[in-house]
């Protein structure tokens, strides 16, 4: 029997807001433990939460970006359970009235080769709700330590329908979702920093069967590849179990990334009763149409829409757009340079190949230099491309020049002048260098005269070597042909 997996994802995204969700304490990562706290974060007697409207605004933005219905009021509920990562022993969340309903995420599956676009599909969302993040526990042999720096940061939970059917789709979904959220400035979505976290609900069923199998919730999926591997393992485990005639239990399991298997955490019977009820400390927030309209105007172009525009308006090849489009900053750099040079193909090539290479060569601690810190500005890149197009310098000189532009930050025109790299276009000088090249390689000259077209390249090579690549290639071609005829 063939089995089919059905997967739904719950993605938690930390919103990039200046301060925490219910107090003025700033959000932050990597700070001294328990330094980002106050009486509200610590849940001291008498402390009260006050809404940070930036968190609501960012949530609405995500909802609009993903085509959700936005709620008219934003209401708060308490989710009650005892755990030391939560100072109040309840989490302020949204239970029956999430801020966003419905919506979808466009995904792209891998194509046949990296140069070919894959199939696109929209994955349906159930809901998106806003809640406060909890603290971070570190367990030691005999005791545990807790850091409340993260506690109270705004956290968005994006819940998909059971509308994903393979680990590859899960990977594509997460990648696309992350790109969109980074585009909109919602979050940096760095999984290493816990800014994006993911739980997966996984079930399998015989192919063709309508009703869903028993679902297992998978936790501790801490990297995008971890999600893919964990989901892949869990699907195999469930299929193996069914093939052996075993039952699947409704439970929560934990992915162990080192040993690469899942283990049970708690069963359905041990599930919490969260005793949700409306938080009496917080008044519901009205979301009026004007507010939504204002946010709508600030929405960025979505990554796949941008890619389609690059195809249509600029005829860029798929492989180039798929390198550009996931990175908004890279796209912005490209578009800025292109506006000046009006040569999308060439600019895009330089950005995707040369610029990216130089940026990643500046890697520190696994982070490449961000493009907004690139010493080569869009203006400088545009100038370089225009110099080559005009024939002022050759392509090869350009390629040599680029690393120097990157290390010095100087505009190409200045470097060309400094090093005397302008193309030699003086007919007299070219004549004499070409004559010398023919004399030095009589053999090639004879072959060309005898009709072997390719032999001219050896002569061109000599000329270029003699001029250190600075001879105007068109002029060299013309001159050699004239002298050899």
């Amino acid at each position, binding site marked *: 029997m063939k089995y089919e997996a059905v997967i739904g994802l719950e993605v938690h995204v930390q919103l990039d807001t200046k301060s925490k969700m219910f107090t003025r304490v700033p959000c932050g990562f990597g700070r001294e433990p328990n330094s980002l706290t106050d009486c509200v974060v610590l849940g001291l007697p008498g402390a009260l939460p006050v809404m940070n409207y930036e968190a609501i605004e960012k949530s609405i933005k995500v909802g609009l970006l993903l085509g959700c219905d936005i709620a008219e009021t934003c209401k708060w509920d*308490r989710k009650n359970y005892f755990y*030391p990562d939560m100072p109040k022993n309840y989490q302020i969340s949204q239970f029956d009235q999430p801020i966003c309903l419905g919506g979808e995420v466009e995904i792209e599956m891998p194509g046949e080769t990296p140069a070919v676009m894959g199939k696109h599909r929209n994955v349906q969302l159930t809901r998106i709700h806003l809640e406060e993040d909890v603290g971070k526990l570190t367990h030691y042999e005999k005791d545990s330590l807790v850091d409340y720096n993260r506690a109270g940061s705004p956290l968005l939970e994006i819940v998909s329908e059971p509308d994903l059917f393979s680990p590859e789709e899960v990977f594509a979904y997460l990648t696309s979702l992350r790109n969109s959220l980074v585009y909109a400035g919602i979050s940096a979505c760095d999984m290493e920093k816990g800014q994006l976290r993911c739980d997966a609900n996984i079930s399998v069923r015989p192919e063709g069967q309508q009703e869903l199998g028993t679902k297992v919730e998978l936790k501790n999926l801490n990297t995008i590849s971890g999600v893919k591997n964990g989901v892949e393992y869990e699907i195999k485990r469930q299929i193996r179990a069914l093939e052996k005639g075993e039952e699947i239990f409704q439970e929560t399991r934990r992915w162990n990334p080192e040993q690469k298997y899942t283990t049970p955490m708690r069963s359905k019977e041990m599930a919490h*009763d969260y005793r949700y009820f409306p938080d*009496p*400390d*917080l*008044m519901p927030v009205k979301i009026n149409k004007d507010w939504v309209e204002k946010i709508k105007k600030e929405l960025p172009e979505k990554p796949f829409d941008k890619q389609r525009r690059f195809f249509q308006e600029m005829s860029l090849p798929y492989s180039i757009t798929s390198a550009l489009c996931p990175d908004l900053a890279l796209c912005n750099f490209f578009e800025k340079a292109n506006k000046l040079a009006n040569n999308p193909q060439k600019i895009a090539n330089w950005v995707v190949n040369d610029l990216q290479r130089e940026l990643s060569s500046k890697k520190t601690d696994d982070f490449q230099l961000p493009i907004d810190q690139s010493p080569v500005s869009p203006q400088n890149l545009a100038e370089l491309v225009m110099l080559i197009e005009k024939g002022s310098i050759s392509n090869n000189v350009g390629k040599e020049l680029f690393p120097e532009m990157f290390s010095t930050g100087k505009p190409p025109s200045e470097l060309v002048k400094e090093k005397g790299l302008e193309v030699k276009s003086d007919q007299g000088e070219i004549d004499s260098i070409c004559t010398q090249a023919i004399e030095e390689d009589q053999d090639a000259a004879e072959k060309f005269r005898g009709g072997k077209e390719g032999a001219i390249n050896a002569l061109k090579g000599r000329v270029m070597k003699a001029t250190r690549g600075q001879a105007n290639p068109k002029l060299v071609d013309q001159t050699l042909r004239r002298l050899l005829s």
Partner: protein
Amino acid sequence: MSSIEIVDNTVSQLSLLLSEKKLSSFEITQAFIDQTNRVDDRVHAFLHLDEKNFLKQAEESDERRKNGKTKGKLDGIPIALKDVISVEGQPLTAASKILENYISPYDATVTRKLKDAGVIIGGRLNLDEFAMGSSTENSAFGPTHNPWNLDCVPGGSSGGSSAAVAAREVPISLGSDTGGSIRQPASLCGVVGMKPTYGMVSRFGLAAFASSLDQIGPFGKTVKDVSLLLEIISGHDPLDSTSFPREVPAYGSLIEDKLEPSVIGLPKEFFGEGMDQEVRDSVDKVIDFYREQGHKIIEVSLPTTELSIPVYYMIATAEASSNLARYDGIRYTSRSKYSENAIDVYAKSRGEGFGEEVKRRCILGAYGLSSGYYDAFYLRAQKTRTLIREDFNRVFDEVDTILTPTSPTPAFKFGEKSDDPISMYLSDIYTISTNLAGLPAISVPCGFTKNRLPIGMQLIGKAFHESELLSIAHAYDREHNFGCESPQLV
């Protein structure tokens, strides 16, 4: 003026003596400290009193006055707060063992407002643990005694706040009222106590019992004193999203304006069975007084009154079960020495740290919120709460003020009701529905029983109509001044 004479003064009188330089804040404060030292071993209104700090603030106030930098009418007047209101650097126990060693690192908004007005803050006042109770018998640190009869309870939960004013240990105090916790003890101790409209006074810094019902309010010997204090503590607070953005009127002077004839409603459900005859007689005299003053008295009906107790105990306990979850032995609360794992820390710390009534209410509240019970209990209670509110709205289309007794009986003896939670809960029957409706209400002393136990009447006003409510209360209080009579403690 001797210290015993000083403590008999109202805030208005003390304020005058200060401005005429006849007394210093230091002398006043010392007089109240002396009185506390004379009587509090018997009354036990205070859980904590830092005399040095109290007097230091008084000296600072005198210094301000000398330099012409007085902050207002109440600059230099001493006050003490119920031990659920945070004052930076002072203990906050909520009369619970679980918070025995907790020192608040920040000021409540009301505390900050008092400091800004130059009021000098000393001492923490006793209460029923976490404000749960009607007698202060639930304090983990021993009950407060009624200054009028030490064998009787002072009422609760703000029993320390009412007894301290009645025993002349402070001229004014603050309490909190969730279902009558200011008005009932005010009535039982023969002082004035007021619960403002929900949202009038910031709850920031008030250790929560039931967030949708809690409201901080003033105690004093007269309506005038209470008005002056309310003026200081009211107003919108950006740190409390349930506080309303409204201008605060100058209640202290507004109440002196000439009172127009108004309509006073007597809800027939409040004047039925269970009311002590002496209470009834006193309230009848109040009714006569208002009638003679030209006010129209009419009978009204609040049919949902009998539902208010079950609704209250469902909503208040549900909120409390969640609000009190933070007292878990992990961070600032006392941790059980005998726990073996995390869950054990919670269970044992809370088991050892909370008293019986608090545990009873947390369990009751958690039960009402549990899946499968939520609709039948919590949700139904919320819907009924809406009906109670609508009941009041309808009555307030006809009347300006509602007049009732504050408590069905005068102060009762220790132990009389402590074994019977239901009969204890019923002592709040006249006060609870105003919390559910969010309305302002005040208890004003209106006489004594033949055994010299105080009796109080309650006036309930329209939401945010504190001025009208205080004015009509003042009209009576000005003529009778029962709150200025002193119990025979010394």
